[in-house]
């Protein structure tokens, strides 16, 4: 039995009320969306909260719309199950639909939200444990300690970004709207390019604070020949977080030649890893022809060299590295369907 520590619960009805409640918490508030990440972490006592601000009644944070430019505007409170099955997401951003569809198990996808997956805390086999377990071993850099159990002598936490949808959103060039309570200096709103959200510190791998509210996810329009895929390495076919995740993007011209290519790998370190240089080898080749197959072999090799998993999450890290080229190949195949 894992009890939650004591906190107060508030359930505001608008974005303005949420940001005010978070501002009033003086940094001791936490945002509750689907609860599938926040509540286990609170139970494990490596995050703390005096006030939990539930978004459940903030209807303006829900919904998937096609924006004026033909891209997507997604409310962060939209469930992962809805993202995975939405016709507009499947058409405009197939990699995101595939990634959302592989998150955890069916119940988690019904409860869990896209915003929650974007803001997911990093994971490590030494931190996602009970307080008792961690106190027996000795606390680590992520919370309450000064040692790293992954990298001996390490001074920076290397817990892994484990959000499946982050790889897809990075490949799609998404941007994120955040809101803080207004002050005399401004209205508290800002927009970040998706990759600018992350920093290489697993203790908190984001450049926004935990009390900054994600209010919208924007995905630019994708061209007619856009293809996207996401594949995930895990021990079981359900429930598990990724041991490795690869999102692929291929934009084809009318003749079927690749004009733009991208690969993003997740669950290596604290931020998503873009394998851009390797992906560029695919540009100018045509799937189905020999030049594409040659390029794919080169991309697999380059990705293997660039991606170096650490023993931070379960699964032998050397095996995870061996799986990088395999999953790069599968992600490209998933994009081409």
């Amino acid at each position, binding site marked *: *039995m*894992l*009890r*939650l*520590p*004591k*906190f*107060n*619960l508030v*359930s505001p009805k608008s974005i303005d009320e949420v940001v005010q409640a978070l501002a009033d918490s003086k940094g001791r508030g936490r945002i*509750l969306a689907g*609860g*599938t990440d926040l*509540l*286990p972490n609170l*139970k*494990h006592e490596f995050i703390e909260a*005096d006030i*939990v601000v*539930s978004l*459940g009644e903030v209807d303006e944070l829900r919904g998937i719309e096609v924006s004026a430019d033909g891209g997507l505007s997604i409310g962060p409170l939209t469930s992962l199950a809805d993202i995975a099955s939405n016709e507009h997401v499947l058409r405009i951003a197939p990699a995101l639909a595939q990634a959302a569809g592989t998150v*955890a*198990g*069916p*119940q*988690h996808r*019904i*409860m869990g939200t896209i915003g929650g997956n974007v803001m997911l805390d990093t994971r490590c086999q030494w931190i996602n444990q009970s307080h008792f377990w961690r106190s027996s071993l000795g606390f680590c850099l992520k919370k309450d300690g000064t040692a790293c159990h992954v990298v001996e002598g390490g001074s920076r936490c290397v817990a892994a970004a484990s959000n499946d949808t982050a790889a897809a959103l990075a490949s799609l060039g998404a941007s994120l709207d955040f809101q803080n309570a207004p002050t005399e200096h401004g209205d508290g709103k800002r927009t970040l390019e998706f990759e600018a959200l992350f920093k290489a510190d697993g203790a908190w791998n984001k450049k926004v604070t935990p009390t900054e509210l994600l209010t919208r996810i924007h995905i630019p329009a994708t061209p007619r020949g856009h293809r996207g895929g996401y594949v995930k390495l895990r021990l079981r*076919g*359900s*429930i598990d977080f990724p041991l490795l995740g690869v999102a692929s993007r291929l934009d084809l011209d009318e003749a079927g030649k690749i004009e733009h290519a991208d690969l993003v790998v997740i669950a290596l370190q604290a931020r998503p890893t873009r394998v851009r240089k390797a992906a560029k080898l695919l540009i100018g080749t045509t799937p189905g022809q020999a030049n594409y197959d040659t390029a794919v072999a080169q991309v697999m090799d380059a990705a293997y060299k660039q991606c170096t998993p650490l023993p931070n999450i379960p699964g032998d890290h050397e095996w995870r590295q061996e799986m990088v080229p395999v999953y790069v190949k599968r992600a490209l195949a998933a994009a081409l369907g």
Partner: protein
Amino acid sequence: MSSLIALELMINGDRMRVSAEAHWTLLELLRYEIGLTGSKQGCDKGDCGACTVLVDGKPQLSCLILAGTAPGKQIQTIEGLQPAHRKAGGTGLDPVQDAFDRCGALQCGFCQSGMMLSARALLNENPTPDRAEIREALSGNLCRCTGYTQIVEAVELAVAESVGAEPKTPSWAKDKPWTESLSSKKGGGDQ
């Protein structure tokens, strides 16, 4: 810091006024305040699915829902499955419960209430799922005893009987007249 908050919940079709602390989960409220212990407390961190309840008809993990966020939602626990079936004009057990019983789709029974609610939610949405769809729908519920075979076969039996089709012979009954024994047992659990 936290104090009791008054909640009005809809549980198994009944309106209930209860009080809970802000940090209580729906599972804790169901089990330890209301006394509905059919929802099981397994891992308590969203891995196992034993605490699955239906929230507005969809399977969710009650160990990861704050009780204070449950008002306004229709919550169905395993205790409400048969009453809901009878209210809808049925007799005996819910067909999913009946099929689990006749297929022996349990050993220790700890996962069973979550399994049956996930199966019920699936059949409400898709009355004729194939085996792959059944396995996908049950993939958030762990069973450490059965190896899942009888569980999947139980859902297939419930599906086959709902459309009047001949149930498939299950893996464990190759040479036995299993459909006869099934029909003789049908309606069990009514006592």
